[in-house]
């Protein structure tokens, strides 16, 4: 059972590392990377629990199905989050530019 334990602990450490990075770093891409690492950690714990060495009984397929579901969900969420991060940057840059323009000619600005 050393294998299960080893991989479970790895998953846990990955989760913790992702959590720490998610909170302290400000760059959006790094935050998304951190979430991905976290989710990988969770999946690893789940699959490690189902592991049985060859010849020592059946492998539980339910966690595998759950992880498969989870991976696909995490990819789609990652894609959406990345797009949103890009939009945040694009719109906020343009917004700042617009605001500076308005500051430059305050008389004409009308909310």
């Amino acid at each position, binding site marked *: *059972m050393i294998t299960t*334990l080893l991989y*479970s*602990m790895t998953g*846990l*450490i990955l*989760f*913790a590392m992702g*959590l*720490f990075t998610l*909170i*302290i*770093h*400000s*760059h959006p891409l790094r935050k998304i990377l951190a979430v991905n690492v976290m989710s990988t950690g969770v999946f690893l*714990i789940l699959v490690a*629990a*189902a592991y049985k060495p060859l010849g020592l*009984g*059946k*492998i*539980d*397929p*339910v*966690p*595998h*199905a759950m992880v*498969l*579901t989870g*991976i*696909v*969900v995490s*990819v*789609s*969420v990652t*894609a*959406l989050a990345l*797009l*949103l991060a*890009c*939009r945040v940057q*694009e719109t*906020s*840059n343009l917004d*700042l*530019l617009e605001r*500076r323009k308005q500051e430059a000619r305050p008389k004409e600005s009308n909310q």
Partner: protein
Amino acid sequence: MRTEEKIITRSRNRHKRLDAFQRILLLLVICLTTLLGSIIWTMPENPPGLADAVALMQEHSGVKSPVTAVLLNFRGYDTLLEVMVLLLAVIGAWSLAKAHFPQQEREANPVQMGVVRLLVPLMFLVAAYLVWQGSHLAGGAFQGGAILGAAGVLMLVTELPCLRAIPAHPLRIGLVLGPLIFVGVALFCLFLTGDLLGYPEETAGWLILLIEAGCAISIGLTLASLFAGGHPEDERPKNQEQAKGPCKGERP
């Protein structure tokens, strides 16, 4: 922009030293990990599971691979909702921005074109094979769909001119094809057996294959659309041509 710039430079030149908040956080995270780790350590050696229950019902599921049986038969409802999650991601992405294509036509790199010509048909074949073998070995709709999606990404990276002109409506049909087939089969089963997704035992294998094929196509398109990063060019309200309001995401 100054503040943005500052934030960026600050994150660039981040020193290795941590400030007080980060230290406390680090301590907390380490404590949490240790606690959870010790709990995992003390857990029973052979965790209980559903392996036997699944094995018992395997022969009634219509497929030989246990993972596919769980995914599309025993817990098919989960998978139905999950296919909807994928579709939702595309709807969300389309609502955010327009797909990015370079303005001027670019002559495709011959090497790239060669790679695409060689690889894309091969990937289609592999995807079809993965969907087919999903009933008895590793593979299935998600893996096949992922390969299809990768093929789509390859074509998008090459910036094939034909991709620019893909009309929105057929693309939308392709995106909802898998979910529609899934829901259709589920309701069909409801009529036949009185249970949502309660396949009749003798046709279960074929129905699952049908769902998998449809979902693989939709998942492939979904992933490629997500990579394209926005809605297609002509996704614009029909009767408002005179109001040439710029679409969001349009950039000079």
